[in-house]
């Protein structure tokens, strides 16, 4: 087994992604957690490039890191009460959570390990972004349209839910 540049990059990036995910779920400051999530997502984007999906990597950066993270930042800051201390959350049942997560990981890893022979596959060259686009509009057209409908519904739903109840007259002052 020889160490190729690809393997080294994979090991580094994978490790960073993992570390990022650990900090995402463990950071006491939510703002840090969001930034660590960014690290994880960015590293995954690099993995996507390595796995022959550069378009997905671009979209991942654009949507996830650019969009989702920004939203999260807003979420964190807007739900902040006074002072930094409010950004910290104490987690209950940490041990139980860790136990369950480890068990799930054991099952997953075990399954993968058992099926390792079936998973011995060679990489195929990517069919390219053009093919991806074509397949979205032919083979997966229904799913694609459903997704767009879902996004529209989500957009309207989010606006309806998060809207101020009465934007023109913010809370009538009560006489005291």
């Amino acid at each position, binding site marked *: 087994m020889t160490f190729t540049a690809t393997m080294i990059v994979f090991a580094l990036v994978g490790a960073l992604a993992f570390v990022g995910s650990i900090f995402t779920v463990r950071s006491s400051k939510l703002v840090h957690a969001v930034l660590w999530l960014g690290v994880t997502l960015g590293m995954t984007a690099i993995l996507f490039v390595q796995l022959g999906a550069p378009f997905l990597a671009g979209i991942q950066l654009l949507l996830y890191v650019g969009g989702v993270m920004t939203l999260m930042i807003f979420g964190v800051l807007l739900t902040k*009460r006074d002072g930094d201390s409010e950004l910290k959350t104490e987690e209950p049942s940490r041990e139980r959570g860790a136990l369950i997560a480890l068990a799930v990981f054991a099952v997953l890893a075990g399954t993968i390990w058992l099926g390792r022979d079936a998973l011995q596959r060679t990489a195929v060259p990517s069919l390219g972004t053009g093919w991806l686009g074509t397949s979205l509009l032919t083979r997966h057209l229904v799913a694609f349209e459903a997704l767009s409908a879902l996004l529209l519904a989500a957009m309207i739903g989010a606006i309806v839910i998060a809207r101020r109840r009465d934007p*023109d007259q913010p809370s*009538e002052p009560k006489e005291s």
Partner: protein
Amino acid sequence: MEATPAWRKLPYRRLELYEPEGDLMTLQLGPQHPSTHGVLRIKLHLDGERIVKAVPFPGYLHRAVEKLCEQLTYVQIAPIVDKNDYVAPMTSEQAIILAIEKLLKVEVPRRARWLRSALAELQRVASHLLWLGTMTLDLGGALGGGGSVFVYTMRERELVLDLFEGLTGSRFHYNTHTVGGNRHDVPAGWAKDMHAALDLIEKRIPEYETLTQNNRLFVERMRGIGVLEPELALELGVTGPNLRASGVDHDLRRDAPFHAYDEVATNVITAKAGDCLARTQVRVAEMKESVRLARAFIDGLPEGPLVSGKPIKLPGQFKVNSGQVYAALESARGELGTFLVAGAGTSPYRLKIRPPSYHAISALPYLLPGHTVSDTVAILGSLDPIMGEVDR
């Protein structure tokens, strides 16, 4: 603009009546802040970026000028007070001299009165030029379009300062007015220089109009922002261009003439809207009017003595009356008044300056709520406060 929300009217004094979505943030704008025109502190209560309550805290530049004047003789006062309004020292000086002359019942020769009027108009041009520059600086930043307009207006203001230097030997704190007249007579060729300078300024005012009033971005930032209702303005004692921009036709140059304004008619410029844009329009139009007036005063400068009798230099020369007097003139910022109570000796018992800027500042708690942080600097800038004058 949508109708003014009810809470904007109410809680500038009663913060507890406002129910925010989230938490209010308190932002101390100043005293060290690039756009507070000196050292004004405004305590802003923000809901997001929207101002809920604003409380200005003047006083950071307080130098006890009025108290100091009680220790000085009448002759010594003038050069001190022209440091009050450091953007328009000429009128600052004239205001105090007017009061002293009125108190001492000194007759001022006609030539001196005409020259004073011309100087007041030149000073108004210079002051408005500086104001226009800093106004755009507030909107566009020192590192942007605002910076450019600022440099242009400073260039033209320099012409006026050169004229003053030619006349008085000093670019800023002139001390050119004495009790009973003016100290420095017009030097040879000065009138010609002045005409040249004014021609240039008149030629360039349309350029500023292009860069400001006719600039879509500028207008968008200014229109409908900081509307000062005429009733409120009158109640607060706001005067000058700020008042005239709210549609109140009031100008001391016409309504209570001082100097030689009873001999040359002044066109009073007003606007209706009362917003920042209207204040800009009024000031720019006033600049044109001032250029016209300055020309008229210098062209019609009558011959004769510049000082009544012998120039008064020593305090002992005064025959001090007891009594009190209020004299006011229209400075670039509005009614600059002086209330003077004569003391027993050669210095006043009490001197009170009524600075127009102070009254303009007092409108801030009413103007700011409902606007954003960005509008704060626009509104503050458009009121043209000079902190030296506010705090004295």
